[in-house]
């Protein structure tokens, strides 16, 4: 059995552990939130429609304040999810108010491209490491040994001559 075959269980284990941790992280539920916490969470995911670089949560202008009031009203109704409230605001002010890109449609490329780049990089590094290892593992044959012996002998003669 080759070394690469022997080591595959550790790779599978590593993939399982990383995948499991990612799944737990993505599905992590920090418990029930109060309405105030929901309003804050939602307003952090929305950009102020008239200012640059500020979320609705941070911004003190009247538009952001009005959006926070609308979010609080919808949260208070208890009938809609966070995503539905964000969708409501997005429909009225446009997708420019989304601070977190959607995971559907062409916007999903924003999420997919870095993952694709990471996979390409890991595969590329793997290929490169295998090549370097193959080169380093070259076993010297008799000819190599003769060459080394001749070189050593030549060095010894040169040392004696001097």
């Amino acid at each position, binding site marked *: 059995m080759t070394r690469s075959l022997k080591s595959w269980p550790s790779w599978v284990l590593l993939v399982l552990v990383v995948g499991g941790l990612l799944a737990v992280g993505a599905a992590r539920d920090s418990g029930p939130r109060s309405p105030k916490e929901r309003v804050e969470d939602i307003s952090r995911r929305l950009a102020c*429609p*008239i200012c640059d670089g500020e979320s609705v949560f941070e911004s003190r202008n*009247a*538009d952001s*304040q*009005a*959006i926070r*009031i*609308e979010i609080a009203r919808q949260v208070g109704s208890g009938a809609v999810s966070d995503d539905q409230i964000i969708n409501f*605001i997005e*429909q*009225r*002010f*446009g*997708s*420019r108010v989304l601070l977190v890109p959607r995971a559907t449609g*062409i*916007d999903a*490329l*924003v999420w997919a*491209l870095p993952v*694709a*780049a990471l996979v*390409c990089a890991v595969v*590329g590094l793997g290929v490169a490491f295998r*090549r370097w290892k*193959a*080169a380093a593992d*070259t076993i010297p*044959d008799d*000819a*190599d040994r*003769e*060459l080394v012996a001749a070189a050593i002998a030549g060095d010894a003669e040169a040392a004696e001559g001097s």
Partner: protein
Amino acid sequence: MSEPVVTETLVSGRSGRRLAPFISLGVAIVLAALFVVLASGEAEKPDVTSSFLLGRPAPAVISTTLDEQRFDLSRRKGSWVVLNFFQSTCLPCKAEHPELVEFAAQQAGIADGAELYTVIKDDPDDAVAKWFAENGGGWPIVKDDDGAIATAFGVAKVPETWIVDPSGVVVVRHATTITADSLAVELQQLRQAYG
């Protein structure tokens, strides 16, 4: 004696040449995808006239006017309604105001003339009242103290002008200044299309 190394180099050189086109193709695809994402991104269009609300029932608007009259947009069904979002410190709003005065006068002379309402956008009531007293405009001015009306319509920058048809459906949004004539012509075309 160095033959094996030479062979290895030749082999890896050949496989590298075989891989190079695929790697280049992969990089090109990723760059093309990035270009598509950036090119198809929503550009900033300050005078955009599209809205999710177009063709849909107008949001519920219940408020009071500056003269403390109740205003309920749903009660205006049966009439063409023009809503103009206004702020007295906004220069384009001030420049547009004479056009609205003219438009209101035009509509007053028509049997089924549109009802014009100003919606105050983030501005003290007395400042707006003072502006109207000095510059004319006898139509109702609707308060929007908590910004609920502006949020319901998705109005961030003023002036904006919206038209709601007699069945209560939003049919036009102008996120820029309008003129009396262009608005009157547009309204007439809408009336004819509405039947």
